């Protein structure tokens, strides 16, 4: 056999790297902007397109799918070629992948501020973009597996196991969580409703963290860390054990996002149990990484790349220990819906994903340009300011989380809530939010310095677009003589397709066990006779609630705690959500829960409050929504929305779509008339009327006969 000569495609790696830098800065800047809106609402720049509810999803999408996404592809395209000793399968597919992904991000940047959202967290993009994501993901998959099939290396290295798991799982998650019924070009309804929708969403949401923010990064860690430190990977056995246990167990843990909601008790408990079991598999990655540095710790002192990697691994270890702890019911009861969770995810995002990306970029860019980094001092400055940024971000947020979580729960001896006004608890933590945005600004400064440093590095040399390499071709008939190579896992590493199918089976089990009973068995969602479908006006109002992203700050699920039933009213029951396509339970209470808001205040109160929240709640940090009063409600969609709901099983009488707008008008008129009696002159065709109708309806279906409601469990 003869040595084969070929080249690595570095250009695609560089392009993904550039995209990482650009989107990283954009995504983090948006993050800083919304952080500032939490103590200075006027930072919404006075218009609907840059108000918290609409651009918070932009921040999360930009940092997850644009910054981290491009970084993944950069790392995968660099390491995959070298680990397989082969150029990427197809340059054309690489290009389609790159430009397709950027196009998807651009479409997110356009549609999210315009209010086109499905409201599923981290899956907000509407159905045409969902289809585009699927197609581009398949392109990525073909390109990756094509490369694997034409490899010149017999066995697949552990990094590639993680890449394969990432590919199959994200595909499954994305497709299942995108079952939407389109009603127009940029509007759709989820097929699932209420509790089931919540379960699907958090199965997706939790595992997007697992398989987009964790597994590809573990794969990259397994390639870049040993390369940087020039040390062997500590334990192959540990790699096998933690890889399989991680992907198997992770999938089950989604319900820990729904503790104390109306999700069936058994599903909640499964979420808790599997979260606890997740500690060791997660730590396996950290241990294998840190112990790989054994004997190279002296290098860490000088090498800024390794410093980034060590902090990244430590942050990963902290976040993956904290996660299981937060899923314990007792801790979750205090932490959930507070800034504690925001702190937790940012330790992961800023520490693990951010720092690992930076470490890799400082190492990789000079290599593909065959030059030295422009300034090591600047990189070192980035490391320290970034670390400081993380601390300034996390510590105040933890403090704010503890403080607010405990304030919500405190009673006086008279048996009253100590802080009956939600706003008191919000105002208490504003100094913490100021500190947090300083932390964020420090972190962003570091990234801008890095962009400058890497830009200078690129400018001072020429990209080695096609890096020459050589390797022996793979023998046609392999004769496995080495007994070590005959072991089962070693054999599996030679069979990429079998490997992928096995990984697929492993990740499907958990999801199926949790979802099937919730969907099939009636007793899991006890129905309530008094719960009726929304009126057409309320339906339109609900879509406005979705458009404005209210769900980003207000939950719609009252948990069965005395502190919550005293504050909000009766706790939420599964049967109340059966017509909610999608569910709007939310995950963070920047403002109070709204599930029992219906009938609590007058229409006039809501009108004044939406026009200027501080008029009704002095000091409120909610932004004003004057555009709802100016804009006319689009009633041309009413009929098609009613028909879509009928398709999804909402029991409107047949032919209701025809009369829907008549009923809508009648209800709108009655609200406008009521407002007029309180000296508020507004036309009945304004959006605010629909939103008020929805707010007044919320949670009222069971108020009349609350003693006959079947329990959740």
């Amino acid at each position, binding site marked *: 056999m003869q040595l084969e000569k070929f080249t690595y495609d570095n250009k695609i790696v560089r392009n993904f790297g550039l995209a990482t830098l650009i989107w990283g800065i954009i995504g983090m800047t948006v993050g800083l902007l919304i952080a500032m809106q939490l103590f200075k609402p006027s930072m919404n720049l006075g218009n609907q397109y840059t108000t918290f509810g609409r651009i918070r999803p932009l921040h999360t999408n930009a940092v997850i799918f644009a910054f981290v996404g491009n970084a993944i592809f950069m790392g995968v395209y660099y390491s995959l070629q070298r680990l397989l000793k082969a150029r990427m399968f197809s340059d054309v597919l690489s290009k389609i992948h790159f430009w397709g992904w950027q196009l998807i991000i651009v479409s997110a940047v356009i549609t999210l501020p315009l209010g086109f959202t499905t409201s599923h967290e981290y899956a907000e993009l509407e159905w045409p973009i969902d289809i585009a994501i699927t197609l581009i993901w398949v392109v990525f998959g073909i390109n990756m597996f094509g490369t694997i099939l034409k490899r010149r290396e017999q066995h697949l290295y552990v990094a590639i196991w993680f890449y394969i798991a990432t590919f199959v799982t994200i595909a499954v998650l994305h497709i299942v969580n995108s079952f939407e019924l389109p009603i127009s070009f940029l509007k759709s309804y989820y097929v699932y409703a209420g509790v089931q929708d919540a379960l699907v969403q958090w199965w997706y949401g939790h595992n997007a963290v697992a398989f987009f923010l964790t597994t590809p990064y573990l794969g990259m860690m397994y390639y870049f860390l040993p390369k940087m430190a020039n040390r062997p990977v500590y334990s192959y056995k540990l790699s096998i054990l933690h890889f399989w246990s991680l992907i198997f167990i992770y999938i089950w843990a989604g319900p820990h996002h729904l503790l104390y909601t109306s999700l069936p008790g058994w599903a909640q408990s499964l979420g808790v149990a599997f979260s606890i079991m997740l500690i060791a598999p997660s730590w396996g990655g950290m241990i294998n990484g840190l112990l790989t540095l054994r004997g190279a710790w002296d290098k860490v002192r000088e090498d800024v790349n390794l410093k980034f990697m060590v902090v990244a691994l430590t942050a990963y270890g902290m976040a993956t220990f904290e996660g299981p702890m937060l899923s314990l019911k007792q801790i979750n009861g205090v932490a959930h819906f507070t800034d504690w969770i925001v702190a937790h995810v940012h330790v992961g995002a800023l520490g693990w994903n951010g720092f690992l990306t930076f470490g890799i970029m400082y190492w990789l860019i000079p290599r593909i340009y065959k030059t030295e980094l422009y300034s090591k001092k600047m990189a070192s400055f980035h490391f320290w300011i970034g670390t400081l940024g993380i601390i300034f971000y996390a510590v105040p947020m933890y403090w704010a989380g503890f403080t607010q979580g405990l304030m919500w729960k405190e009673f006086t001896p008279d048996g009253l809530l100590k802080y009956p006004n939600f706003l008191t608890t919000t105002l208490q933590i504003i100094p913490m939010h100021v500190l947090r945005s300083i932390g964020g600004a420090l972190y962003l400064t570091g990234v801008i310095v890095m962009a400058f440093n890497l830009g200078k590095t690129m400018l001072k040399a020429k990209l080695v677009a096609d890096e020459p390499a050589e390797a022996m071709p793979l023998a046609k008939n392999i004769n496995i003589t080495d007994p070590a190579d005959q072991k089962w896992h070693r054999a599996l590493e030679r069979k990429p397709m079998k490997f992928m199918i096995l990984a697929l089976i492993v990740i499907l089990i958990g999801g199926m066990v949790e979802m099937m009973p919730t969907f099939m068995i009636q007793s899991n969602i006890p129905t309530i006779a008094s719960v009726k479908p929304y009126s057409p006006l309320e339906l339109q109002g609900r879509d406005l609630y979705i458009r404005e992203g209210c769900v980003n700050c207000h939950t719609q699920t009252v948990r069965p705690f005395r502190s919550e039933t005293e504050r909000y009213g009766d706790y939420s029951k599964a049967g109340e959500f059966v017509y909610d396509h999608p569910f709007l339970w939310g995950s963070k209470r920047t403002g109070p829960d709204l599930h029992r808001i219906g009938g609590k205040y*007058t229409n006039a109160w809501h009108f004044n409050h939406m026009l200027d929240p501080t008029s009704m709640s002095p000091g409120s940090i909610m932004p004003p929504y004057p555009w709802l009063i100016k804009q006319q409600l689009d009633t041309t969609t009413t009929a098609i929305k009613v028909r879509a709901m009928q398709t999804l099983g909402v029991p409107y009488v047949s032919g209701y779509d025809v009369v829907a707008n008549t009923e809508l008008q009648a209800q709108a008129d009655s609200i406008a008339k009521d407002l007029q009696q309180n000296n508020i002159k507004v036309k009945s065709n304004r959006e605010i009327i629909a939103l008020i109708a929805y707010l007044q309806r919320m949670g009222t279906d069971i108020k009349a006969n609350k003693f006959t409601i079947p329990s959740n469990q």
Partner: protein
Amino acid sequence: MLTRINSRKMKIRRIFIIALLIFGVNSVSFAYTTTELMNGIALGAIIFTLALICLVCLVLLKTFKVMADMLLPKEEKLVIAAPVSELVIEPSEPKLSLWEKLLSLRPLAEEKNLVMDHKYDGIAELDNPTPAWFMWLFYGTIVFAFVYLLNYHVFKLGKLQDEEYAVEMTQAGVDQKAFLAKAANRVDENSVKLTADVGVLKAGKATFIQNCVACHGEHGQGIVGPNLTDEYWIHGGKINNIFKTIKYGIPDKGMISWEKQLSPKQMSEVANYIKSLKDTHPANPKASQGIKES
């Protein structure tokens, strides 16, 4: 040697007791505290975490040192010890530090025997076993998970959320009753008394400013809610009527019930304050509503 082991044991025991105390105090104080104390606990938790981070840093530093110590002599051997090579003693059993034992690591010198045959783009892998402590952690969490599920769903010893809620509410009812039975200022709509006491009115005004002005105006002139300074009353203008309106609210008209937000004492204070507003003639009064009462 023996005393050293003993003292180490003592130390571990002491740390254990302290940890137990911390946890014990925490769990007791959680149930009956004020915010100040809660804030204190939060602060304590942060300090504890920071201390933990410091400890971890120290541990890491120690690890660095151990690693460096193990590496440096090797390099020296190469450079300096070359001419006197006969002095180099064949390494017998290399000594392991405490940390290495804890992490169940093998000495670095043995590493060459562990390197596996394959290399991927220059990356080698070692055939180290999975660390024993790691395996015990994993087994431990699996046992925990099984016990957890059995506890809640098979033996049903643990309370699921609905039951937990019922217990919490019953207990709260008992506590509240006991407190109100003792409290001197137990007032309801029948026993509330009209008073012009300055202290009462001042407290009432504070409550009013905090909770009522959004709807009734800063001076009680009425905005969304009715004017409270005139002689007209929709739901009665006697102190008992006002107390009752505050307590239970008039949900149909948007007056919310304050029973769960204000104590009986606070409601009586604010009712008295409202009574004191009569004929204060604020600017921009809302038109009178209801029946005239003198």
